[in-house]
């Protein structure tokens, strides 16, 4: 990697799993059960997520896992986001129902603001701080009422707009 470069605000794309939790809409990361706070930025942390057996052994013997500031260049931790939407099929840009176990929610793509220490990758970033900026809902005729209510609740709780077209996701000033 080359030396650190100081740049201005950075926007990128990522998916969230949006679901109900105790009557409130929650934005959660897809691959880890990280809940995004509605009122403060999310700060990355590295837990060097171990396998179940390692985690159980550490807990049994009260051994603390070693951590480091996140993101680190020698690790894969941090808040992930994509530089571009190219390569993502159109149907994958629209909210997708997701129902793991008894949970029920929706996968939604949106724009995220990144800052702090950021590791730039070929196709994306790993960031220290992040805050959601916009969520893509897709056209209203392709959604059911449950999704609409959930996304509207997420929009209110996180104080972020919902946009129905990919163009508005990229260029919010073009919103009708």
């Amino acid at each position: 990697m080359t030396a650190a470069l100081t740049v201005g605000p950075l926007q990128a794309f990522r998916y969230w799993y949006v679901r109900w939790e105790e009557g409130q809409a929650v934005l959660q990361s897809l691959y880890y059960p990280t809940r995004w706070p509605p009122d403060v930025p999310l700060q990355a942390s590295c837990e060097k997520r171990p396998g179940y057996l390692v985690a159980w052994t550490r807990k049994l013997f009260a051994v603390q896992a070693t951590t480091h500031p996140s993101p680190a260049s020698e690790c894969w931790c941090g808040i992930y986001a994509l530089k571009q939407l190219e390569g993502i099929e159109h149907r994958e840009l629209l909210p997708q129902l997701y129902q793991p176990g008894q949970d029920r929610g929706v996968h939604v793509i949106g724009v995220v603001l990144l800052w702090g220490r950021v590791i730039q990758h070929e196709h994306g970033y790993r960031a220290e701080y992040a805050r959601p900026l916009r969520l893509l809902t897709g056209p209203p005729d392709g959604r059911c009422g449950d999704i609409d209510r959930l996304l509207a609740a997420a929009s209110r709780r996180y104080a972020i707009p919902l946009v129905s077209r990919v163009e508005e996701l990229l260029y919010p000033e073009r919103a009708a």
Partner: protein
Amino acid sequence: MNIGEPIRELQVEPLMYPAAMPSAPAEPHPTPTPEPTEVPA
């Protein structure tokens, strides 16, 4: 999420959430002007 190989490290300045909000500038305290005094003729 496949983001490829790392390229470089960036220090990104925040737009909406600065680490510490700058404190409001202090109100200027104008020097009080002395009351005009009448000079006896």
